[in-house]
């Protein structure tokens, strides 16, 4: 069931929208690349700074060297039978979902697509047709009617989990070093709920996502939206700077007013520094927009077999830094046809075939 990637119709739709947005904002790719480069050039300093400002904003901050460390942190934190989560590649990268489930914790996906897949028990797949979605919802939740009504049913169903969860797990599109902010972009509003309703919000973010200031974060988000879904901006951008608080009773600051009283940020290295140090900085320019996947001749056929956590050729290269060259081969390093189409599609012009070649030579 399902397709690894959207059928040509949807792709055409997205690229038409993208062309229109880029015509209005032709410098976006370049601005994005510059913002990323500037940030990576001072990565160590930014990590330092972000840890300091996040803490100043009363977030609990951890710097995890590897996936296992990050995973353990979360496993030790979560002392509830159920957690809610929104889509995040960093969460997939550390494998926290299977680990939580193994511990007996129910993990509830809140993005529609992920939720439906979870309901159908097919993992991992990428995109279901509307009809397939309706079928799953009918058999899984017993909701009937058209998509709109069915979505109402999903909303109600997930609300119960969102209202009851003590922990919410998310990734982030950026961390802003100057203010200690997390920036999360999405379309559905589920990430807002996950990061606002439970009393503890846990965010896992790769250290390459740290940018110096809000302006750079906006550039990152604009690029992710235009190249990812062909929108000017994702529907919801949440800039979160510390836990929820109020000072309305006699001026005393109390945490956990309407949002979480604890915000835990796990900054994830997991091979990123190594990547930078061994001359593969380019790999970290990736914004996970997926524009490259649309044009890759290999990806639609192979799907999750091409890449590792991060889909496609770029994911295969990154696997080398988290699991060594064998892992990269396992992730399909040799499948690349060197057509270079991904490079043209990428806002940062990441030259994946070249990276693959260099890696293979190593």
């Amino acid at each position, binding site marked *: 069931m399902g397709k690894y990637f959207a059928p040509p119709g949807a792709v055409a739709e997205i690229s038409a929208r993208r062309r229109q947005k880029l015509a209005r904002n032709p410098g976006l790719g370049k601005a994005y690349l510059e913002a990323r480069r500037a940030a990576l050039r001072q990565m160590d300093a930014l990590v330092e700074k972000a840890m300091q400002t996040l803490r100043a904003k009363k977030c609990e901050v951890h710097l995890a060297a590897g996936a296992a460390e990050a995973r353990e942190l979360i496993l030790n934190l979560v002392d509830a039978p159920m957690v809610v989560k929104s889509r995040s590649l960093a969460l997939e990268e550390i494998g926290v979902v299977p680990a939580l489930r193994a511990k007996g914790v129910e993990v509830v996906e809140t993005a529609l697509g992920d939720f439906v897949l979870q309901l159908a028990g097919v993992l991992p797949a990428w995109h279901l047709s509307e009809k397939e979605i309706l079928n799953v919802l009918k058999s899984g939740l017993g909701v009937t009617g058209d998509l709109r009504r069915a979505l109402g049913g999903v909303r109600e169903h997930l609300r119960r989990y969102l209202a009851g969860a003590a922990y919410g797990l998310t990734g982030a599109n950026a961390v802003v070093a100057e203010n200690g902010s997390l920036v999360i972009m999405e379309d559905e509003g589920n990430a807002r709920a996950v990061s606002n309703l439970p009393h503890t919000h846990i965010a896992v973010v790769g250290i390459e996502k740290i940018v110096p200031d809000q302006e750079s974060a906006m550039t990152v988000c604009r690029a992710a939206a235009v190249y990812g879904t062909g929108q*000017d*901006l994702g529907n919801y*951008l949440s800039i979160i700077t510390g836990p929820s608080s*109020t000072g309305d009773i006699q001026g005393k600051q109390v945490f*956990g007013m309407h*949002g979480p009283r604890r915000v835990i940020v796990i900054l994830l290295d997991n091979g990123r520094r190594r990547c930078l140090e061994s001359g593969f900085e380019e790999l970290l320019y990736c914004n996970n927009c997926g524009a490259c996947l649309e044009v890759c001749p290999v990806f639609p056929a192979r799907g999750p077999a091409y890449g590792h956590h991060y889909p496609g050729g770029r994911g295969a290269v990154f696997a080398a830094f988290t699991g060594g060259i064998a892992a990269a081969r396992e992730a399909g390093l040799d499948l690349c046809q060197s057509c270079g189409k991904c490079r043209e599609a990428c806002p940062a012009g990441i030259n994946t075939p070249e990276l693959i070649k260099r890696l293979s030579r190593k």
Partner: protein
Amino acid sequence: MTYSQRLKQKISEGLEDKVSAFVRQMVTRVQGPVIREMIRKFDRDELRSVKEYAIGHLAELVDRSVARLQDNGFIVFRARTAGEAVDYILKLVQGGVVVKSKSNAVKEIGLVDALVAAGATVVETDLGDRICQMGNIPASHPIGPALHVPVQKVAELFAAETGQPVPPVPEEIVKVARETLRQRFFEAGVGISGANAICADTGSVVVMENEGNIRCVTNLPPVHIIVAGIEKIVPTLEDGIKVARAAGLYGMGLDFATYVSVISGPSRTHTVEGRVVYGLQGPGEVHIVLLEEGRWEAVKEGFAESLYCINCGSCLGRCPVYGELGERYGHKYFGGIGVIHAAFGSGLDKALEAGLPLCLGCRKCVAACPVRIDTPGMIQRLREQAVAEKGLGRGRKMLLGQLLNNGSAIQRIAPVAGGLVCDRDGRGGWYPRYALFGLEKGRRLPELSKKSFLSDAPRRSGKGERKVAYFAGCLNNLIFPRVAGATLRVLRNSGVEVIVPPGQKCCGYPSLANGDRDGAVRNAIANLRAFGDAGVEAVVTDCATCYSGLTGYPELLAGDSRWVDSAREFAGKVKELAQYLVETGFQPAAGETQRKVTYHQPCHLAAHGLSHGRDLLQSVPGLQFAPSQLEDNCCGFGGTFNLDFYQLSKTIGAHKIQPIHGSGAAVVVTSCPGCMVQLMDLLGSGGQPQVMHISELLAGGGGQHG
């Protein structure tokens, strides 16, 4: 009741409401220094240019953002008036629970009452607002509306709401509030919010907060309605972030508010078929009501600057009038900027009732504003309109036109008339025996001098390379010739030749402050004539208010081609006494060394960034300088403000007394005869500490130019 009676009533209510005034002032005392520290690096010019551009291109930006917002799936309604906005929303909301977050625009259109009348249950979700709503308690502060409510009372309110005992502990109350409001969020059919900014390029709405209630209001109910004035539109997403940053900094003293949310349409997802479907975890329907009400009129009548306001509330924290009266100063929007808003939203009479006559012109709000909005300047122009419509009033005309400008008349009448109705305290003070001529009983008036300064001032005195002209001003002329004399002595003794041009008049500031522009122009021209060919390097004044008045001539005469050039040249030469002395390298020789001295900084110098008086004092050899807290707080004098609103004036000034006594000083020195009048009244006949003009202190000790 006339507007002025209603205003008087609001003032007396405000003056009685001491608890909420205390809270406002306490918040300013605690938060003020934090904010001042944080905003150091903020680029006000950048934000101002964003707003200048946005309001300068408003029509175009409105069209562009409407198109983008619609592209994004917002349902946009352009409301010409508040009534239209309310009607539109009433069609959307048929009863049920409505959750709302803090919004000035929602307040402006009176939406809550209309919704309640239509049968809806409207629930405030900001904790402070909710407390006020539950207890039906008026707000005391724009950001912390319930700060004046004791924790015991808050606990009782929530206990009544839940039917369970609630301990009077903030942490426990917050838990209960979170739970009860959560239920409301889930059951609500509609969420209503305002917007901090609307970004035209991405078609997005920016909202900011610390509690997370706005995130709930805008995410949990199936329908979200945003109400925002068109002045909230800025060109880009980045500009919207700038606005949010400024509002966090200036309004809350945070480098970034806890939650800044950028919303670009209804909750949605894209299916593989390329379709967009709406209403996942967020609302499937988002309306945005763009409110025009009064905004175009403001632009048309030359008050576009009032639309630069981002509603951060920073000005309120510094405004002495707001500090006492709170929300009674303003109408829907508060403080001086709120008065201006009232003029265009509800007309001049409403503005008068909202407090148009109350602004002291202290310019504290301008200094505090992230956009540097010239609120007192706009208020002054509105007063001109009011005078044009309603006239100046006979008494005021006489005071400004005759008495201040014609010393001899007042001098002839005053000693006789004054003696009949006043007691003297033998220290140059008069106490009215009856409440006469608007002068209240119990106040201390300075005795008018028997002879005005100008009637026998030396036309030319002193010798030296430097040559200046002296501008005396009304108060020195009529009440403190001794100050004027001391100023001449200081200048002469330090080797400066001083001329006192005859024919000089009142600087015109009092006329302008009363909305009598013509009178101010007449005085300005008379003074330009008097000082025209003096051939001096500087025009020195020892009155802070006159400094403001005189340096304002180029603007005052901007439209008069015959005078504008000389006004510019003249204004370029105007120096405040201490400024002149410091800039010419004056070294005070010796001065008061026996008694401790403190300083009061006049608003009219602070507004121009002049602090030479204090510097000069500290350079007097052997002088024991005792700084007092709130040194640059307004004394509350405000010229005719003090005659019109004596109790308010005195209440504002009273805050200075404690710190002045606290400094342990025996002498309080200032650089403005207006402030002297007020301080002498406030400190009373005890004469402790003694009030002195800086020139009096310096004249005692002499000094030299280096």
